[in-house]
Structures are given as C-alpha cells and as structure tokens.
C-alpha cells in the first residue's frame, strides 16, 4: 500500500520522533496554562492580555501551535491508515481516507492561521 506518501516526513522513525517532541511541548503548554488559571482565581483582562503580550509567551504559544499541527497530522494519519483501509471499507477506502486526511489538514491549517492572528492581533 502506498500510504506513506501522505505521512508527515516520509519516514516512520522521524514521525515517531516528531510525535514525541510535539507531545512534550503540548504537555508543557497545557500544564502551564492550566496551572496559570487555577492559581490566579480572580484573573482580570489586563493580566491575561499582559501574559499573552510577553515575547516568551508568544514564542511558547506559536511553538505549541506548530507542535499541535504536526501532532494532529501524525495522529490522524496513523488512525486513518490503520482503520480507513480496503480491508475495513472496501474499494472506496483510498477515497474516504484521502477526504478524511484532507479535512483534517484543512482544519489544522485554519486553526494555525487563526491562532497566529490571535497572537499577532494583541
């Protein structure tokens, strides 16, 4: 099956690595932001905006957006090539898988651009 033409790096090992590195970035960002809101109960607009206008926070957020895009692509690619196969759904599998991957890719691209606009709009 020529399914690896759609994987992120054309290399399973590199995808494996990208998935783990992006996972660590996503975990750090999630825990940081969750910790920030949990430990700042009366959070106000100025403080919230102030956090996101810091350079390091913008870099951290953008890094997370990139990591999220890569992580989502590798994850959805793995799921779709595992389960949307001719064995599971017959001769239309390639079409279905292609459309599924295209939809995921489009959604992630929209989220990425939207995220950049939010961060740069401050």
């Amino acid at each position, binding site marked *: 099956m020529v399914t690896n033409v759609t994987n992120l790096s054309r290399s399973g090992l590199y995808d494996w690595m990208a998935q783990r590195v992006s996972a*660590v970035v996503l*975990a750090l960002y*999630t825990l940081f932001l969750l910790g920030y809101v949990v430990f700042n109960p009366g959070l106000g*607009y100025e403080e919230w*905006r102030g956090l996101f206008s810091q350079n390091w926070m913008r870099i951290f957020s953008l890094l997370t957006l990139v990591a999220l895009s890569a992580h989502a692509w590798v994850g959805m690619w793995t799921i779709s090539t595992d389960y949307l196969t001719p064995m599971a759904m017959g001769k239309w599998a390639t079409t279905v898988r292609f459309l599924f991957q295209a939809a995921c890719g489009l959604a992630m691209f929209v989220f990425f651009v939207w995220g950049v606009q939010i961060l740069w709009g401050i």
Partner: protein
Amino acid sequence: MFAAIAFMLWLLDISLDSERGFEQALSILQHPFAKLVTWGVLSALLYHLIAGVRHLVMDAGVGEGLESGKRGSQVVIVISVIVIVLLGVWIW
C-alpha cells in the same frame, strides 16, 4: 479534539480582543452547558496527556511487559479519574 480546539481558540480570541470580550468569555464559561463542555474538553485533553506520558515511559523501556503493561494502563485510568474529578470540583 478538533471541535475542542475550535472552542478554546474562539474563547482565547474573544478574551484577548477587549475588556468586553474578556467579560463575555467569562460569562460564557459560567453557563452550565459551557461548564459541561469545558469539563468534557479538559477531561479528554488530560486523559490523552496522561496516557501519552505512559507512552513515553514505555518508550524508555519501562512497563512494556504483559503484566506491567496491564498495571500501567490501570494506573493511567486511576490517575485520570482522580484528575477529572478534581477538574470537575474546580469548574463547579
């Protein structure tokens, strides 16, 4: 998760847009249904995170056996349930 990302990005967008947007985001999060959605979103995210940490531990060669793998998955479920309950307490 895709719908969850859209929900969270939207809240981030309006909360950073203006003082009014921030208040609006806060009041949206006060709504009982939005609280349920937030709980669902964060539960899914944190379960994914905790199960992901188990994957990294297994990559390091720990807990790969049949018995230890079983125990590892049980530990993930237990920790996730505790975290999800705490999350619910925090939200409500």
